[in-house]
């Protein structure tokens, strides 16, 4: 076995080994970003009042600085686009992105393909918080339901974390088991409260199934900072997350401070999940399936996987919400129903297409 002095190898040779897959993944990121833009513009025009593309385009252009367009549309149309559909669509996109990123992070940390954003009690905590909110007098409900859902989600995850901690380390199996136990405990309380809630049950179930109706700009403004900051932090830790796919011992021997990375990633993923569910309810499926779909197509390297799932999650939930509000208009279908009903067959199709190890 000939051993060259590999520390001084001439650099031009490297072109032959440059990982070609990287390039196709970068194209994929650009492609999905464009697709997200197209999705936003197309779905803005779809709804109970169909708005022609030219009008839509002019309304959006007129909002840009330095451009003046004489309005040829009614103020009503402008309100529908800018104050009803746009914030709703943006929230759906943000939530989809957040759930997909959080799901990818949990799957990576736990090295388990079944992990999802709700694994360590976040969903059950949010549900309990929200239901307590529903029990409040009607006039207090508007702001308190999301606030209580957020607080419930974060405290459930924090409780799981502190229970699972052993000295200075956090064994991931203990964390999952503590999450399941706390989740079951909170779900028991939630079930009883629902049972005893009487005429508020319909509202609670609607919340639990998820919905983006009644979204306005302030909700988008509230959620954006959390999701933005959390997602950026997770993106930054993509390489440590890759190395942690080996196992904790090897990751440490490669110089990763495993306990610190776990804490940061769990914290960020929990925060964005809590922010995602607090206004629109527990939307299932996005957090587990988008990751697998993207991984099937573009591979497991987290530095590409994370941006790709962010975009794919946003696109998926915007499309799902468009279906939710138009399919049986004027009645809305709960979005949780749509995500699973259309997402599952698509995922099964992908699974059959690429028969190879994905995890």
């Amino acid at each position, binding site marked *: 076995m000939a051993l060259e002095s590999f520390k001084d190898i001439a650099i031009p040779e490297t072109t032959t080994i440059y990982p070609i897959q990287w390039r196709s993944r970068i194209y994929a990121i650009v492609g999905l970003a464009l697709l997200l833009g197209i999705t936003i513009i197309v779905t803005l025009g779809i709804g109970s009042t169909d708005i022609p593309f030219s009008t839509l385009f002019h309304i959006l252009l007129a909002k840009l600085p330095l451009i003046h367009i004489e309005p040829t549309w009614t103020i009503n149309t402008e309100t529908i686009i800018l104050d009803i559909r746009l914030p709703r669509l943006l929230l759906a996109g943000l939530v989809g992105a957040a759930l997909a990123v959080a799901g990818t992070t949990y799957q990576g940390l736990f090295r388990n393909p079944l992990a999802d954003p709700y694994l360590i009690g976040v969903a059950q905590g949010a549900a309990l918080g929200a239901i307590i909110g529903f029990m409040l007098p009607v006039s207090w409900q508007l702001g308190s339901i999301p606030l209580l859902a957020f607080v419930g989600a974060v405290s459930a995850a924090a409780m799981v974390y502190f229970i699972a901690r052993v000295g200075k380390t956090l064994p991931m199996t203990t964390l999952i088991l503590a999450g399941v136990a706390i989740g079951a405990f909170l779900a028991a309380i939630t079930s009883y409260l629902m049972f005893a809630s009487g005429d508020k049950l319909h509202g609670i179930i609607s919340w639990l199934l998820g919905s983006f109706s009644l979204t306005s700009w302030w909700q988008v403004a509230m959620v954006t900072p959390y999701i933005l900051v959390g997602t950026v932090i997770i993106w930054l830790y993509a390489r440590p997350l890759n190395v942690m796919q*080996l*196992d904790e011992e090897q990751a440490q021997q490669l110089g990763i401070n495993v306990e610190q990375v776990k804490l940061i990633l769990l914290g960020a993923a929990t925060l964005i999940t809590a922010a995602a569910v607090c206004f629109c309810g527990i939307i299932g499926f996005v957090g587990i399936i988008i990751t697998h779909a993207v991984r099937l197509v573009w591979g497991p390297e987290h530095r590409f996987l994370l941006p790709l799932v962010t975009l794919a999650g946003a696109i998926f939930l915007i499309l799902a919400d468009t279906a939710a509000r138009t399919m049986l208009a004027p009645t809305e279908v709960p979005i949780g129903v749509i995500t699973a009903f259309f997402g599952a067959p698509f995922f099964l199709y992908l699974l059959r297409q690429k028969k190879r190890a994905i995890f």
Partner: protein
Amino acid sequence: MFNLRLDNVSLGYGKRIVLHNVTLEAKPGEMLGIIGPNGSGKSTLIRGITRLIQPSCGKIFLDGSDISGINRQKLAQLVAVVPQNPTLPAPFTALEVVLMGRTPHLGLLRYEGKKDLAIVKGVMEATQTLAFAERRVGELSGGERQRLTIARALAQEPKIILMDEPTANLDINYQIETLGLARQLCLKQKLIVVVTLHDLNLASQYCDRLVLLSDGKIYCQGIPETVINAQTIKDVYGAEVYVYPHPVNKLPATLVVSDKDKSLFEK
């Protein structure tokens, strides 16, 4: 001169001490073999040197400084491990796994540059893994995966390589190639190689010095000729073997005799 020194080190898990009062030293250009029966503490020693577990007494020094004061990233620039039967994530490509070896040299925000790729290419050539660089790890054989982890360890550009049973999954050809490579790294790159081995013949042929562990203690250490003989092997392993000088280089060679021929052996 860069060296590895263990000074009266005891290592264990919680209250259970696995290795007692180990003192040893390794210098650059030296291949140190750790031999001993199953459960004698070989892997624990490697865990201790990479600071996965803290010594309950004694200190481990790298280049004169106590490793408990070196941060994990810096330590990974100095010490690389070739683990025994490592978990490798199936969907990653071989190249991606070797690139992980560059982790200790890259900050959070830095992507692998041309230099990193050049190093990775070099080590993949040296370990004959370049041919399957784009294949998924899940599709590789045990031997290919073993060589891949050696490539990953080399990509760390360490001063010390710790190999835990590197030949366990390999056929005789790759056993020779792997230990040959380890020896060349010792001689040409002036690395310290510490290798745990079950095969006493490979240990004798390739290592400059051997440490024989027995029940968590050093039974004896020194050049192969002094460590491997019929008496020490019987004392430590409890096995009757026949040791004679290798016909080519006179190093001790261990032969096994089966029960049916024990009577011939006794003559």
